[in-house]
Structures are given as structure tokens and as C-alpha cells.
């Protein structure tokens, strides 16, 4: 698989093969500017490779239309960002249930697990220590960063998507909270059978995972200076 930004000939990513098995917890490590976020966008089908293929549950993302890729992402991928995960004008519950508004499949799966989408959202928040009524009533902008990340995790997990992608979700958390967050994430990924691709530049977390992949090792593209992380 090869990826170059539009208008450049210089490849940013050139990866022979990278495989994530169902339910696997993979730690993807790379320094800033190594193309981590680009790789995640490729995995999620927001970007398409310049050459090669990306298979997600058997679908070749490069062969699909934008709308089809959006559909696959909505159905099968949960995403956690480094920060600003939440829609400020939605409540905690609404933020968690957001993917079910875009994906019929995740709505159905959420109902299978919790009875209703609301119940499943509340169950996930509970599992992430966020079930407190006071917290739920609060505006998402009033939550602490750690609380926001847990709401984002619940959103990524609702409807049990096959793949959860976390892009440096712990970089704004201190060490104690970081480990607690990763533990909670593991537990819920296992419960829903989701594979987890966890991206970080912090090697301290690596031993907790099934497998660690060094992006600089698998990327055969010559190193370039990229403006983005």
C-alpha cells in the first residue's frame, strides 16, 4: 500500500502489509510527523491509497465510492480522537448515541445488547465509570478531559463496531488516568469483540497490548517532513 498526498509525488506511507486480526489489540507507535494520522484516515476510509489496497472486513476501500466508504466507517469503525471528541451542543447521552444516527447496523447491535440504544449508551457509560446522574446532566463542555475521553470511548464502542481506532486518546491525560482509561477501553473492546488500533508515541503503554507495531519500521517510504502529526 502506498499513499502520497494529492499533488505530491513523494510517498508519505509505503507499507508492504499490515494486518489487524479480529479482537486484536494493536499498539501502533510513531513519532509526530511519521504519518500516523494519515494511516488512521486510510484505515477508516476517509482517505484512499494512491496504490495498493486496504481491506476492511473484506471490502477493498480503494474500490468503493466515498459514500460507500462512509457507510462502512459508520457501520464498522469506532473512532477516538486525541481531544475535542464531543459535539458541544449535544448532551453526554446524545454524543454517545451519535453513531446510531448514522448507522442502522450499529443501532440494531446496540439494541441487541442493551434493549434500547439509550440503555446501551447508559450501560457503556456505566462500564466506563460515567453513569453518575450528575455527570450525565452536565454539558459536555463542563466535563474534565478524562471524562470527555471516556464519553468518546463509549461512543466509539456503541453498537460494537469491529474496529476501534484510538488516535493518541491518552496524550492529554496524566499517567494514573491514562492506565485506567486504557484498562477500561480494553475491557469494553473485549466485551464487544472489537479489534483495537491504539496509536501513541508513548512506548510506556506498549506492554499492555497484544502486539506493537513501529510505524517507522513498516513504512518504507523515505522520511519526509510533514506539517501534520
Amino acid at each position, binding site marked *: 500500500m502506498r499513499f502520497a498526498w494529492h499533488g505530491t509525488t513523494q510517498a508519505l506511507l509505503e507499507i508492504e502489509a499490515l494486518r489487524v486480526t479480529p479482537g486484536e489489540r494493536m499498539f501502533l507507535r510513531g513519532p509526530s510527523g511519521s504519518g500516523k*494520522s494519515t494511516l*488512521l*484516515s486510510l484505515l*477508516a476510509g*476517509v*482517505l484512499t491509497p494512491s496504490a495498493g489496497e486496504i481491506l476492511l472486513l473484506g471490502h477493498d476501500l480503494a474500490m468503493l465510492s*466515498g*459514500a460507500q466508504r*462512509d*457507510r462502512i*466507517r*459508520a*457501520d464498522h469503525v469506532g*473512532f477516538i*480522537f*486525541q*481531544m*475535542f*471528541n*464531543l*459535539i*458541544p*451542543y*449535544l448532551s453526554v447521552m*446524545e454524543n454517545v448515541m*451519535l*453513531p446510531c*444516527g*448514522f*448507522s442502522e447496523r450499529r443501532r440494531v447491535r446496540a439494541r441487541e445488547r442493551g434493549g434500547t440504544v439509550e440503555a446501551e449508551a447508559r450501560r457503556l457509560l456505566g462500564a466506563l465509570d460515567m453513569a453518575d446522574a450528575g455527570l450525565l446532566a452536565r454539558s459536555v463542555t463542563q466535563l474534565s478531559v478524562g471524562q470527555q475521553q471516556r464519553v468518546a470511548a463509549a*461512543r466509539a464502542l456503541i453498537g460494537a463496531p469491529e474496529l476501534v481506532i484510538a488516535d493518541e486518546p491518552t496524550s492529554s491525560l496524566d499517567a494514573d488516568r491514562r492506565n485506567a482509561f486504557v484498562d477500561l477501553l480494553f475491557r469494553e473492546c473485549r466485551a464487544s469483540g472489537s479489534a483495537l488500533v491504539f496509536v501513541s508515541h508513548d512506548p510506556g503503554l506498549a506492554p499492555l497490548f497484544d502486539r506493537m507495531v513501529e510505524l517507522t519500521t513498516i513504512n518504507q517510504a523515505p522520511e519526509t517532513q510533514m506539517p*501534520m502529526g
Partner: protein
Amino acid sequence: MNAILTLALKSLRNRRGTALLTVLSIACAVLLLLGVERLRHESRESFTNTISGTDLIVGARSSPVHLLLFSVFHVGNATNNISWDSYRAIAQRPEVAWSIPLSLGDSHRGFRVLGTSADFFEHFRFGDRRRLELAAGKALDGPFDTVLGAEVAAQLGYRLGDRIVVAHGSGEVSFSLHEDHPFTVTGILARTGTPVDRTVHVTLAGMDAMHEDNATGPAADPLGAAMVRRGPQRQPGREDSHAHAAERAGGEEHAEDEHAAITAFLVGLKSRPAVLSMQRYVNEYPDEALTAILPGATLPELWEIVGAAEKALFGVSVLVAVVGLTGMLIALLTSLSERRREMAVLRSVGARPAQVFALIVGEATVLTLAGIALGVALLYGGLFLGQPWLEARMGLYIPIALPSGRELTLAALVALAGIIIGLVPGYRLYRHSLADGMTIRI
């Protein structure tokens, strides 16, 4: 799409301060746009309804607009008079159903005095063929009776039985008063919203008597007595009567149906199709240079002139609408940078770029539609409250009717413009979300 609409509404609720201001500014723009449109329509309507049911207006040879101005709107003066003989000759033609003589040139404390006959109250029509109605008293009867327009009575505080003195010329201040012949207020007309409201109506006989008596005094109006032919700036009607008076050695009673020259007259025909041939007959009248106009044809011509201000007003209200919508564009654009993060999150949960686009355009649409709804509500509220005032003070009756086709078109244009304006930030975010993907740029 449902999810997107819900998001749009919640996003607007979150920014309700800005949203409310935007809605308010659009509402004001719509209120102004539709209000001006309605005022424009109604004032035009009321203007063209100043006179109705009259087939021809006849005056001395002049431009049609000029004739209309002085005979109906009482603006400016006649260039010349019509002799009583010519009036009789035309009025007695078989095609003529009725005629109303008009003699102008005097004033009472700034209000025009119209010398006419009882036929005026019988045959004059305005608006939707409404006839003049008396609010109090009776129509003209004796020679020194006067019937006041509603505005005259209201402004000067006259009541039935009051005696008023008429002045020569049309100015507010006149040095030549016809003090010997006070008129008695015998009737006050109901409000019409036309120049009739601002007119003092007297009989032709009373007017003649007043001027003749003035003319008998040697110092009263020497110019008038001396000059039989006169320039346009003089008050022709009066001098003509003076001339007549001199010929008749003054002071004698007129024959029953014999008056001094008049300024103009209104004609109603028995059958409308005769109007063009009648007009040609008057325009080619051999004994005197006369002009006959069709009010229905000349009123729109005059409106073209006085209606220029109305076009400017409409232009201004269009600009206000543009400003209101620009305000929305600014509000939407300034929120864009903070919303790029939001869009990345929405993309990550599966929103398509088209849905991101729809979210922004949807918000603009909701804002615009809410603004239009509020604007229309304000318009009707304002009409409801302002209607009595407008009728009393401006003589402009604005019916509370459903929006006209033109008003609906204007509202639809505002809605369309609002949606198009929403496309600008919508497209920008769409481009961003395609390019950024889920990368959150701060």
C-alpha cells in the same frame, strides 16, 4: 437526513443567542420588505382610486397630467378657464349622463376652496365607486353654504353652523379676503383618504356673488377688473368673474343656471364606449381650446412621476434584506473554524461530506424560514395595530388581507437567497471535510 436535521436544530439551540439575532435581523428585513411592498401597493391603489366613475375631465388646453393635478389633486393652478357657455354646450350633449363643474382658485386658511354644484355630492365617486358621505349636516343647498372635507374640519376645529371667510389665491396667508360673504358650514364629509378631505366646498353661486361684490368696489381688485385676458399665474376664475361682473354692471342676480367661467368639469357618460369619441369632440371643440382626459389613463401616468420615491423606498428595503442575509452569512462563516472540529467528529462517526454540507445549509434554511415567519408575524401585528392610525393620519386604509402573490414571491426570494447563502459556508466545510478527513485542525 433526520439525524442531520436534529443536529442542525440542536446546534442552533446551542448558539441561540447568535441564532436569535440572525432570525431577528432577517425578520426585520422581511418586515420592511413586505411592509414597504404593501404600503406601496395600497398607496398606489389609493392614489389611482382618488377619482373613479368619472369618464372625462375637461379643462382649458393643457397637458393631461397638469389638468389632472389641479382638477383632482388641487395641486397647482389652471392655465386658463372654460366659459360657462362651452361647459353648458358639452354637458348638454346626448352622450352625457351627468357633469360636475369645478371652480378653483380660492382658499381658506391653506385649504383649497372648490366651487361646485350639488351634483358633486350626487355623482362624484372615489375608491371602489364609493360616493361621498356626510359625517354631519347636509350637502350644499343655499348659495352661502359650505361643506368641509374631514381634514379641514378636524384641523381647524369647525363645526356645523360656524361661519368662515374665503381668501383669494391659494396661499396660507392671503391679503385679499372676501370678508363680505362669509359661508356657513352646513355639512362635514366623512373621511375619504383623497384630496376631498382637504377641500372646502362652496356653491358656484356663492363664489360668483363673492367675487362680483369684490369687483364692484373700485379698489378691491383693480387689476382683475382691468384685465380681461390674463396670464397663467393670475387666478383666472376670479378675474373672469370680475370681467363678467363689469360687463353686467355688477351686482345683478344671475339667471338660474348661469355662472361665471369655471376651471374644469367632470363628465360621466351614459355609455362608456362613447368616451373616446367624446374626448375627441372636446379636444376639437371649435369655440374654445379644451383638453379632455381619461382619469384612468392619466392617473398611472402621474403615478410614474410621483411613484419614483416609492421605487427608491423599495430599493432601500431590498438593500436591508441583503444586509440581513449578509448578517447571517457572517454569523455562519465566523462559526466555521470552531465547527471544523465538529465536522471531523461527525465524519468519524460516519457522516458523509454531503451530510456535513446539509447540516450547514439546513441551519441557514431554518434561520431564514424562522426569520421570514417572524417577519410576516410582525407585519400582521403591525398592520393590526397601525391600521387605525394610518387611516386616521394618512388617509390610507390598509386592509388586513392574505399576502399578495407579489409578497409571497418576495418572501420566497428571501428564502431562496437564505438557502443560497447557506451554500457558501456549507461548501467550504464540505471541502474541508473532504480534505481534512478526520484530522482535527485547530
